[in-house]
């Protein structure tokens, strides 16, 4: 699924002049590629992902979602995508399997069928035998897997991931990154992956979109041509180091800008 975003502007209503979260974003998120969105806090990464996912309505601009195999009929935002939320948004009253099967249940898939499907997905994220557990009984990393399975079971070609691993400890994060790489290499979905972490962006992405501090614009797009399959060992290669330095330089400027904005806002 190719995603063409053109001149996207989002102005949030704050009772006054409004907050410009996105100021003219234009980008082509390529089909079957993993694109990382990187930028300082508050630059509009979540906003952009949610607009692409049809969860929020943009103030202006267009989004075209096109299946390269069938370019004549574009999809509506949200129609062919599913979101994995930063705070997961698992339903605490549902056990693991009923969380994973939620989307299928809403679509009216019969119980036996949706459970079979959910069970497969739970096994493929490594949670076999945890089907009947309540989400509150699971560790952070396991909950993350439930949220991933709940999104994957929808079998949508576009996966939107809003800082899914930000809250994880370093070890679990590495495991989840490898898991995602594996899934991506197997399923070849179009993935938008929001992150704060430069190493994560390079490790996972085919492309890293660096955004400016608010109002969010695209500062630079960096191609990551490291070969797949990738693993954590990549971090020690000179290519990785070069990319890291380049992105760090871009990001540092923007983070400083964002901090200055915050200071000015606080001074007023």
């Amino acid at each position, binding site marked *: 699924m190719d995603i063409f975003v053109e001149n996207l502007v989002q102005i949030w209503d704050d009772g006054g002049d409004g907050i410009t979260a996105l100021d003219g974003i234009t980008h082509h998120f390529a089909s079957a590629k993993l694109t990382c969105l990187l930028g300082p806090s508050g630059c509009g990464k979540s906003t952009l992902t949610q607009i692409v*996912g049809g*969860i929020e309505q943009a103030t202006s601009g267009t989004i075209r979602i096109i299946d390269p195999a069938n370019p004549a009929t574009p999809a509506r935002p*949200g129609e062919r995508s*599913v*979101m994995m*939320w930063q*705070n997961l*948004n698992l*339903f*605490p*009253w549902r056990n693991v399997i009923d969380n994973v099967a*939620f*989307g299928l*249940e*809403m*679509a009216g898939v019969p119980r036996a069928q949706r459970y079979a499907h959910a069970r497969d997905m739970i096994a493929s994220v490594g949670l076999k035998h945890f089907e009947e*557990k*309540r*989400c*509150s*009984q*699971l*560790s952070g*990393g*396991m909950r993350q897997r439930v949220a991933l399975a*709940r999104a994957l079971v*929808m079998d949508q070609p576009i996966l939107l991931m809003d800082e899914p691993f930000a809250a994880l400890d370093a070890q*679990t994060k590495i495991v989840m990154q490898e898991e995602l790489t594996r899934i991506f290499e197997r399923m070849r979905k179009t993935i938008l992956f929001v992150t704060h972490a430069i190493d994560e962006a390079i490790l996972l992405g085919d492309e890293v979109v660096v955004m400016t501090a608010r109002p969010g614009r695209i500062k630079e797009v960096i191609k990551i041509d490291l070969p797949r399959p990738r693993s954590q060992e990549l971090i020690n290669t000179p290519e990785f180091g070069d990319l890291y330095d380049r992105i760090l330089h871009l990001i540092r400027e923007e983070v400083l800008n964002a901090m200055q904005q915050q200071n000015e806002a606080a001074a007023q």
Partner: protein
Amino acid sequence: MSIKKRPKKSQDPLWLRLLPIASVVLFLAIWEAVVRLRGIAPIILPAPSAIADYLALMIADGSLPFHLGVTFLRIMAGFLVAGFFGILLGVLMGMSRIVSRLLDPWIAALYPLPKISLIPLLIIWLGTGEAYILTISAISAFFPVVISTYAGIRQADQGLLRAARDLGANERQVQLKVVIPAAVPSIFSGLHLGMGVTIILVVAAEMIGASSQSGMGYLLIRYGQVLETEKVFAALLVLAVFGGVIIKAQERIDRWIAPWAIGHR
């Protein structure tokens, strides 16, 4: 990656676990000693041993079980009526702006009113029979239930609603499968408040004016009037234990229906 464990009570040292029992035993011993040594008249303050004798007597002759049973049935009736209408209206208010606008002024006006002050009116309208007891207890318990239910529905986590919609839920499914379950912890706390109020109001109504001559409230008043202080204490003791048992049972039922909601309140 491991399953979270709750710390168990049994990890406390033995003396710490026995402390509550020791505290009660010590209190009773001092009470007994004071009454005996100072020769306090049983009409003023009977000794625990005397209260225990009367308690056994009242259980044996069937009067306590009967009156307790009657009170229990009244509490359940009032509670169920209040719970049913409270949850129903709370859900309707949470889902429909029209209903909430219609009912808001009434709830705002009637909630702070001490329900016990309705007793004279209710007696005029309903007489002093079962209908009066049921009405006063149900009305009092209704308010905490409806308010908690309404609040629970309104305060449902928006993130969960958005996630459900993203997973393809339509608005009806969002209400049924997300908003209502999300309100369960809040509904439970409303039902707990409601139960407490029902117990109070049933016993109070039995004390004030009820013509049925039954129930724990009636017993307390009758024994009080004839200065059978031992029996008053015995009835109070039973009532206290009874209230505790009801609350514990309610917690058990909560845990059984919605184990995930524990600690969510």
